[in-house]
């Protein structure tokens, strides 16, 4: 078959999009469509695995093998898929509740295993789909449906957490800047290893349109002065309190990925054990 030039349009689906008008996630979706085209991934070789949430609906909006799974489990399902088919590209996606609340355990251990996924978190600091309860990234003191007298908890810092856990690629994007976000997704996908892309993707319904303005005003695009291979610099950036860092914060190569480790192990086992068939294996029972 002759190669056809793929465009963003080739990654759209006919599934009706049910996000609220103005939702930040539209920008993320566009960036994903554009990134897929730029990477020229044949749609049938792309898997998009999401959890449950407004953001997680994205699993159905990309022409790919899309899987809108269950709440909090996008990462292990995506990791299982990648392990099964390492030749495919796997994107995982979801919200701040999905990834940093119910899914935290998987977040921590997926990073530890360096599962070769690009994980796009649409961080809107709220639970959108369930209509406005507090999330782990909701600022302290904010009134939400489940914190009518203000959020008593201190928010989680997912970038710093990922860094501490040894994530090999950490970036932050903004759904208001599709081009920049597209580039981050492209870089994250090319990165061999777990790539976290936390996206400031405002929920206009439960946190208002001004969230876009906040990111526009406080967002700082990292320039060449930032060396993403320097852990300490990266750490400092994750600790910014007023400014919001945008761009690739941290990146190291060469850490073996889950699927590479598995392939190596298979080779080693074959060398050592060389069973040709399960019948051969009977000898261990004698």
């Amino acid at each position, binding site marked *: 078959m002759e190669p056809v030039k793929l465009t963003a349009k080739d990654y759209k*689906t006919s*599934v*009706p999009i049910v996000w609220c008008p103005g939702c930040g996630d539209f920008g993320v979706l566009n960036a994903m469509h554009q990134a897929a085209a730029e990477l020229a991934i*044949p*749609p*049938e*070789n*792309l*898997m998009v*695995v999401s959890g*449950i949430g407004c953001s997680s609906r994205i*699993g*159905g909006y990309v*022409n*790919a*093998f*899309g*899987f*809108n*799974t*269950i709440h909090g*489990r996008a990462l*292990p*399902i*995506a*990791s*299982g*898929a*990648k*392990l*099964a*088919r390492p*030749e*495919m590209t796997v994107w995982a996606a979801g919200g701040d509740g999905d990834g940093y609340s119910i899914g935290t*355990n*998987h977040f*921590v*251990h997926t990073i530890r*295993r360096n599962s070769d996924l690009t994980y796009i978190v649409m961080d809107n600091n709220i639970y959108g789909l369930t209509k406005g309860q507090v999330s782990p990234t909701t600022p302290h003191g904010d009134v939400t449906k489940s914190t009518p007298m203000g959020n008593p908890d201190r928010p989680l810092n997912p970038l710093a957490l990922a860094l501490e856990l040894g994530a090999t690629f950490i970036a932050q994007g903004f759904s208001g800047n599709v081009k920049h976000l597209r580039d981050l997704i492209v870089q994250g996908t090319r990165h061999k290893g777990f790539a976290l892309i936390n996206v400031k993707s405002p929920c206009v319904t439960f946190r208002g349109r001004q969230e876009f303005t906040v990111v526009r005003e406080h967002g700082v695009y990292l320039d060449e002065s930032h060396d993403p291979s320097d852990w300490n610099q990266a750490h400092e950036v994750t600790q910014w309190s007023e400014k919001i860092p945008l761009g690739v914060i941290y990146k190291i190569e060469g850490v073996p990925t*889950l699927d590479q480790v*598995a392939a190596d*192990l*298979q080779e*080693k*086992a*074959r060398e050592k*054990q*060389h*069973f040709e068939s*399960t*019948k051969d*294996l*009977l000898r*261990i*029972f*004698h």
Partner: protein
Amino acid sequence: MRDVTLAIAGSGGDGVITAGDFIVQAAARKGLNAFMLKSYGPQIRGGESSARIRISDRPLYSQGDFVDFLVVFSWKDLARFLDEIKLRKGAVVLYDEADKTPPEEFPIDAELGAELIPVPFKKMAAEEIKVPLTKNMVALGVIAELLHLPLDAIKDAVIKKFGKRKPEAAEVNIHAIDLGKKWVNDNLPKGTQIVLEAEGTDEPKLVMTGDDAVAFGALHAGVKVFAGYPITPASPILEFLSKWLPNFGGTVVQTEDEIAAISYAIGASWAGRQAMTASSGPGIALKQEALGLAGIAEIPLVVVNVQRVGPSTGIPSKSEQADLYQAVGGTPGDIPRVVLAPSDVEDNFQVAIEAFYLAEKYQIPVIILSDQFLGERSETIDEKVLFARKRVISRQLAKLNGGEYKRYKLTDTGVSPMTIPGMRGGQYITSGLEHLEDGRPTSSGTIHQVMSEKRARKLHLIAEESGFVRTYGDPEAELAILAWGSSKGAVREAVEAAAEQGLKVKAIVPQLIYPLPEKVLDEALQGVKRAVVIELSYGAQFYRFLRAYYDGLPAETYSYARGGANPLLVSEVLEQIQKYAQEA
């Protein structure tokens, strides 16, 4: 005797289980049948442990109700196993004379008239072999000589174990065995022997535990991704596959928890590779939500539950059959699923293959309900029967013809064409939401009904797949015992014993629990007037399940159900048969 049950009880350090393993391996080499149960106290090392081995040239189905021959290293340790180790009248008991418990305090019922023989196990090991740890090998020699077990085969097993790596260890151990043998000849009158008159065949047998068997079956069926989290008594499945799956191009992941484990398996299967997870009650509970996803998304999946005593942490190292409700109804909503129950070690292997067969053919999650009693026991197995059933299939892929592809197409069978990544034009959305034929979400009640029907149609076909019901005993009997899973052993033996007593009874043991193979059950129950449902569940889950799902129960159907931990006894079953059977 053609059928001997012996038990050895001691502390962890006593090497009780090792000795038992050698006996079973020796029996296997001689083509004899053996069956071994291990039992441990709560202490990981140094606590009490016991091995209980039954050997015969006839097929063995259970652990045997009574012990003919008992070796006691410490009376205190034995005392912990009194629930499990019941002596037959006139049993032979060898005990280490180093244990200074006065005879009147031996935890043994005087009325049994057991023959009590003190043996200097510890002393011989310490003084003659100079390796106190060989106490168990001395005992092995004593046992072998008294029972006429094949000493050559035992020694072969010892040599194999230490093999090339530790030839000196093998030598010391063999020396200890010979010492034990000699002690018998030097010290005991000939009549003490309980000669095992079983004749082995020339066909050596395999020795396998149920957990290994299910893992091996999965491997044979083509599993490529196994994800699990350790838990008693299912961990050996994880450990077996960790060791052997990579050679076959597969991968094992010990995940952070059980939810991740089933999630990995779902992801892998959705991506196109056969996948499995395994756990026990508490871990299986955690998997229920994801199981529902596999159900509605129609993803092939095999989940093994090695049941233990519940509820909650319960008694982790003991067996029970009380996770049936969870298997059939633990997930919210009406989800299609299959429940298979193996009934002995070999069956664990077969059922694993059947599970993948059904999972892949019908795109459905399949739960295997094994239990600790099956999972951790060792049995000898005939190599030839192992690969006899041939239902190994791989993923059945859709044929794409360029037209619109509908992943959840409504079909007569309920099975729809499935694609996997890499198939051009085969992209679709998978989700746990109710969906249209092409996978798009819907909230229409009308479609929910149609899709529920579609998914249920698969169950009707599965119920008609052949080979899922076993019957034993008298086909004409008016009394039937209905049992499932690991209860089969005691039930089958009881049915044979009843026949010898002239009682007419049959046993019916479905291997497919859900959906019930109703037609075959109907046939099996023809002419049956009374039935007793026997199981190890305080709540009588199988009895209630049958009432709920099966229309063909005889009007007179009784329940015999008790909680687990202690395995079902042949005598318990026989008592039920005696209560309800007519004379032949």
